[in-house]
């Protein structure tokens, strides 16, 4: 697994190895992630700098829990853009962020539903 996407071992060590909490967190994140990205996207589309700063900050917080460094970095860039009121290249960063989050969602989903071992 790409540790830039999700570092399970690191997260589990921070959770004192509690797989139950991890499973619950993944469930909540997968449910909340879509709407969170949508808020970021809406703010970027409508050139709402304050909204972009807040929504990207919140998304960054969630991503930080899973240690998704690349996605966190993109969210941080969007947050800074919102803070500075310079949204020129927001669409480009947002597209990158969507890909990174899609990779994270896939990694987390795989973790929840492990593939059957080959016989």
């Amino acid at each position: 697994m790409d540790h830039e996407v999700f570092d399970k071992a690191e997260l589990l060590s921070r959770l004192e190895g509690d797989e139950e909490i991890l499973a619950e967190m993944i469930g909540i994140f997968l449910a909340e992630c879509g709407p969170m990205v949508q808020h970021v996207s809406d703010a970027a589309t409508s050139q709402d700098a304050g909204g972009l700063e807040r929504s990207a900050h919140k998304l960054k917080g969630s991503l930080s829990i899973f240690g998704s460094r690349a996605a966190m970095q993109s969210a941080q860039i969007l947050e800074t853009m919102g803070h500075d009121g310079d949204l020129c290249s927001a669409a480009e960063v947002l597209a990158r962020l969507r890909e990174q989050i899609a990779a994270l969602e896939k990694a987390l989903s795989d973790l929840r539903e492990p593939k059957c071992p080959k016989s």
Partner: protein
Amino acid sequence: MSKVLIADDDRTSCILLGGLLTKWGYQAEIVHNGDDALRELMKPDAPRLAILDWMMPGLDGIEVIKKLRAAHGASYTYALLLTSKEQKEDLVQGLDAGADDYLRKPFDAQELRARLRIGGRILELERRLVSALESAEYKATHDFLSGIYNRAAITEMLTREASRSERCGHRVSVMMVDVDHFKSINDTYGHAAGDEVIKQLTARISSVLRTYDAVGRLGGEEFLIVTPNCSLGEALGVAERLRSGVASEKMIVGEVAIPVTVSVGVSALSVDIPDVNRVLETADSALYAAKKSGRNRVECYVPPVRPTSPPEASATSVGAIAKAAG
């Protein structure tokens, strides 16, 4: 089980915090915005430990802490600020706003646990300090034997009532109560019995007073009763009820029934008795008169009739009651 409030709009973070805290034996209460956090923390039985996310909808974590500190609640709330801000200036701002500690996201479970333990230790110290202060304040204002106000506290209360009387014009009466032949009670039955008499007398005095009257032990076997919004005539009635009540029923101390009587001197603030010192002096001289006239009596100080104005009706009737009471 210690309650901890978690305020974070990120539900994943809430699951993480709530799960860990529950595992560590805390009772986690979760809210998702600053307004709800403040409302919960202002409740009387609110959690004393709070983990607040910095950026939240409505009030942010900093504003919650500022409002909490400004409210000066009865109990201290240990506030741990959770933040993904990384600038030193931000953290300084957070701590200056009144946060006790902070933790950067993503946090480590062991570190959070240790920081919560610090919070618990601080809160325990605060609880012990408040308890010691309350105990010291109680000891400074209460008589150790009877549990009622001591001399300083009851005099202070009279001073407050006197200034209120000056502002609002209502009357304030005082009664000075002294146990007759207390020395011989001590000599005959012992000092422990004397102490018991003081305690039982305190209960009897309290039983004839209204909730807003106050009684204190001046020392030895002498008590002072302050009755706000009470005329001299009404105070004489109370004093007489007290005197007759004490005299009519012996005090049972262990196996013995001790006959106890009291003498009472009554006075009231008025144009002629305008201040605390004077009202205490006159109540004391009325008490002296009661002792001199044979004890087990109520006497009051009646201000002399001023030649320039007609005698007041209340002063005349008070004089009549004083005579009847004797």
